[in-house]
């Protein structure tokens, strides 16, 4: 009998919240006031955010100069295969009507350059760029090896197509005095890129480390000679190279090029006046090239879009809020009307 009782009990399912589907749950209890308050708050938040963003992005100063047409001669020159890597310089004067206060950043901007093509984006060798095995060109198709079979360093389509125009900004105090605006090329990359994702092979002499390899097809100098001024900025850890290797998401993009060294005339930023870009034009492609000078605000150089997006969202939320209030009041009135009847 006892056995049987035990047996009976053992078949009885456990009385736990989980098994009896009585786990604690939280239900939102929506009431008109709560919903309306929430909508009001969200709307207000978005509007404030939006207005702040718009105002702040208005305060940023930006100047963009498209040099595709101006340097068309250079492009034409290069169309001839013989002059492929011939240097060609063009100068673009411009006038800065207002001074650019604070830090000024220089970008190059490419229109219609598809850095996000599937095969392009994969054409790189991370193990090479980490300095682990510079002969590893496995993923770099079709830029793995030169015609004579030596591996290309750095290999791949991305590296091969690196932006290598040289842009020099000069401040023209008057027609005679042209001051070269001092620019810094350091700290233009992500810290992680510079110190983690890109490493030179460990060797005392960089050129030795790169021995047995060949430079990318479209490059004029090998990677270990990218920066003649700063020996620490050569090889894979060259800032310009790292910036280029961080591929852009869209076919129109700008990349960090230089930042203003705030010394001498330029401690306050760029004063208003006449300037000119001296561009050593290297390669041309189907799209357009531009150079951008810009100051930044607290939130960086965000365009107007985000501010507008916030404002529109906030406005829409409030629109819905008002219509809900109207509906609520009308229903309430009708209810009381019915109740009175």
């Amino acid at each position: 009998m006892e056995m049987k009782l035990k047996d009976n009990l053992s078949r009885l399912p456990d009385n736990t919240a989980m098994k009896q589907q009585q786990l604690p749950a939280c239900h939102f209890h929506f009431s008109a006031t709560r919903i309306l308050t929430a909508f009001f708050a969200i709307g207000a938040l978005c509007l404030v955010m939006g207005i702040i963003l718009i105002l702040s992005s208005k305060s940023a100063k930006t100047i963009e100069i498209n040099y595709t047409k101006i340097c068309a001669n250079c492009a034409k020159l290069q169309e001839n295969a013989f002059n492929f890597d011939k240097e060609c310089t063009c100068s673009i004067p411009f006038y800065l009507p207002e001074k650019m206060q604070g830090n000024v950043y220089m970008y190059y901007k490419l229109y219609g350059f598809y850095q996000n093509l599937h095969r392009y984006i994969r054409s790189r060798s991370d193990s090479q760029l980490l300095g682990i095995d510079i002969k590893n060109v496995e993923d770099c198709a079709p830029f793995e090896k030169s015609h004579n079979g030596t591996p290309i360093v750095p290999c791949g389509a991305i590296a091969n197509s690196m932006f290598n125009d040289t842009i020099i900004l000069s401040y023209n105090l008057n027609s005679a005095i042209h001051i070269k605006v001092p620019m810094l090329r350091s700290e233009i990359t992500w810290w992680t890129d510079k110190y983690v994702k890109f490493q030179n092979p460990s060797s005392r002499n960089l050129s030795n480390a790169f021995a047995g390899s060949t430079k990318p097809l479209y490059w004029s100098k090998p990677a270990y000679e990218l920066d003649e001024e700063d020996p620490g900025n050569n090889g894979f850890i060259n800032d310009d190279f790292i910036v280029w290797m961080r591929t852009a998401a869209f076919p129109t993009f700008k990349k960090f090029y230089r930042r203003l060294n705030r010394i001498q005339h330029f401690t306050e930023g760029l004063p208003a006046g006449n300037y000119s870009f001296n561009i050593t034009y290297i390669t041309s492609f189907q799209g357009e090239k531009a150079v951008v000078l810009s100051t930044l605000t607290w939130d960086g150089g965000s365009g107007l879009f985000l501010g507008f997006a916030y404002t529109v969202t906030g406005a829409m939320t409030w629109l819905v809020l008002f219509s809900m209030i109207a509906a609520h009041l009308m229903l309430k009135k009708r209810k009381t009307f019915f109740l009175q009847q």
Partner: protein
Amino acid sequence: MICLHIALQGSTESLLRRSERKYKEIVIVDQDNRIHTSKYNVLTFLPINLFEQFQRVANAYFLFLLILQLIPEISSLTWFTTIVPLVLVITMTAVKDATDDYFRHKSDNQVNNRQSEVLIDGKLQNEKWMNVKVGDIIKLENNQFVAADLLLLSSSEPHGLCYIETAELDGETNLKVRHALSVTSELGADISRLAKFDGIVDCEAPNNKLDKFTGVLSWIDSKYSLNNEKIILRGCVLRNTSWCFGMVIFAGPDTKLMQNSGKTKFKRTSIDRLMNTLVLWIFGFLVCLGIILAIGNSIWEQQVGDQFRAFLFWNEEEKNFVFSGFLTFWSYVIILNTVVPISLYVSVEVIRLGHSYFINWDRKMYYAGKATPAEVRTTTLNEELGQIEYVFSDKTGTLTQNIMTFKKCSINGKIYGEVHEEPSQKIEMIKKKEHADFSANPKADSKFQFFDHNLIESIKLGDPKVHEFLRLLALCHTVMPEENSTGQLIYQVQSPDEGALVTAARNLGFIFKSRTPETITIEELGTLVTYQLLAFLDFNNIRKRMSVIVRNPEGQIKLYSKGADTILFEKLHPSNEDILSLTSDHLSEFAGEGLRTLAIAYRDLDDMYFKQWYKMLEDANIATDERDERIAGLYEEIERDLMLLGATAVEDELQEGVIETVTNLSLANIKLWVLTGDKQETAINIGYACNMLTDDMNEVFVIAGNTAGEVLEELRKAKENVFGESRSFPNGHAVCEKKQQLELCSIVEETVTGDYALIINGHSLAYALESDAKNDLLELACMCKTVVCCRVTPLQKAQVVELVKKHRNAVTLAIGDGANDVSMIKSAHIGVGISGQEGLQAVLASDYSFAQFKFLQRLLLVHGRWSYFRMCKFLCYFFYKNFAFTLVHFWFGFFCGFSAQTVYDQWFITLFNIVYTSLPVLAMGVFDQDVSEQNSLDCPQLYEPGQLNLLFNKRKFFICVAHGIYTSFALFFIPYGAFYDVAGADGQHIADYQSFAVTMATSLVIVVSVQETQDIP
């Protein structure tokens, strides 16, 4: 016609000849008793299991994608994005299959290595089961499992009797008796004679009919017919018999047990089917997107990429734009396949499994009376429980308890039984009853209650008809007596009705004591009388009666018969007219009270006549052609000119909570159809008792026509009645397309007001199920709130279910407890078995089982509703989530030259569904409750969305997809706008691909997770 031929020449040498008469061909087979229920062995596991797994459409589809991804030209995703989930799923399934199979191997080994004593070389030797061969002679001892299907040769009990328990075969726990042929039972335990036994058995081919066996034993120049009574099947246990010998007829896979373990039909839910359609549509959608993008790619390659190529792809030769587009198409098919990820299928299974466990764990569906929790036997049907429109219920044992109590009887035109009128009289009666039972009958069952002193008086007075009536009850049955440890007499009954009748006879002084194959001993008012059992004409569903022919000690031969009144009344002698009319009045009175009735009759047989008849029966038994038909004919022949004794009425009480359940189900707009084998009156009465029929119904139609025309006429009339005279049916209606008809039917259904009920009996149902009346029946039945079909056969039950299933496009559930409900349970979308009195067959065939009918409302209204709600919400959300996730690639295509570049990191794509968003959605699918269980029981109307298929259908799907597309659009273009031309606070640009990908991925996870907390459209 296939027939088996087993020849025995010496005990060890055995032959099984399977001869096919048609071709006069004899095949010699040497079958051993080894069984394999396992599917694989170590070597075959991998190939066979993988082959099976890749037969599933989803797995094959993902394999196809994987192969696409391995082609470098078009692989837009790395191979691991598909292979990780696929391998995970395949491994999980394989591990599950492997463990299942391991246990099967283990049990196979255990069973195959069981020892049994086999007669080898004239000696009994222990042999493993797997080495037992057809033709071997086996010795079985008490409580041993039977190793193979045996022909019983002899046993320790007199007359070669032996007792077996068949629980493993059919779930019935009562003992059954088997007896050897008298010629073989003489062999006894004489090893040397047994060893020389050289009979030849001609028998049917292996089949799965547990209760049927036909064969002939040829031995020493005579032929003996063999039937089920002579056979012990594998899986049985020998009881109350110290030993027995048997010859193996079927071994191993040929045994009836193994033949019965066939594959069960795979049921799928309507959501499954819908999902398959949707997946096809989605695939079509993908192809369209792929084509758009491929065209885009061709154009881009031509306009932009051409010049760009030289710059980026250096030394490659010029490519054909169209070919590039073609490759892009496949690349995009790979990328966009995440709309239907493999995890969808896995999650659906996990959710269903979770819901199944909740049902198993539900304490409120646990029946303490029998210590039975609810059990889910098919775990893949749960959400369909929330869509049931029609419930087909058996009556006996399902709505009622199937605990029979003898209530009333009519003997020779006089009613005995409970009298309701005067309470004082009743008390007196109870006293008398107690007195009478106790003194006169020490063997009485203490639980028995019968409140009529008149009957006891009549017995005492020695009314011969009353005595004959009770004698019949004590003789004509299949009950097995057994004495328990305290010496009390216990009856092993196969059907509770019989038990009730034999117990009643016992309490009234006619005590059934014991039986042998040739005698039945009863104690008649204190004196032991032994009757010679001459023939036993057994019960089946077609005959609906059983008879015994006995010779009493005075030498008279009598046939005692009991059975359904309709059948028996046709067999009566013409002189019975007066008593017939009286008895039928009584019968309808009994039935009107919801009692189950049987008519009782006897016939005195002439010695000569019986001998002639018996000779013919023996001939028929040996015959191999049309044996059953000939035997049935002979039974008909002798069961005529019966003298009516009276009728019995047995009560079967309603189960607890049935009324409430029926009311709630009807509030939930679930139509309950009762399909029962009972009499019309009984069925109607039960209908009233459980509130299915009420007095304020507009009309209760009774269809009881005897010809096809009559039935059709009645149906049409009833239909006119429902629609009213003003709205007669258009003539062309009958030739309308079926679909139109259905629509019409549903329109009509809405316009019909008022409650109607339909009652139809089996006889009429047979006509109504014919093609021309079928639609009328269906339309009428659909209009009625309640439908009761009485006197239906198991096959008709299944036909009715099929009819509704096929023509109404509705989800059906069949619930029953007995072997006669199995066909219905199997043919309905969902079969529910009541684990009750009548064995386990219904439960074994069912998808869900529990102990009480009342749990049905909890199963449907709580678990079913939740399952449906959760599954729909899950599916909506899952499709939404994956459209939002995947279509971003489509938008990005316009900015990356249609180069099949993905927006997200490869690992994010791999893990999005199985890591980043898996748990919340699973938790929602398993646990979410829109309303509490109490509310869903209190308000059964909440069940209706499921029936109307409102929560997940094609429209819902499109809304989800549109919502997903909108989300993907916003997800792509807002970051696009924000990132365009942007720079970080320290001047570094952040509009790079990687930042963009991470931002998109993060916002995607946040958006879909927040969306989950909202109600999906």
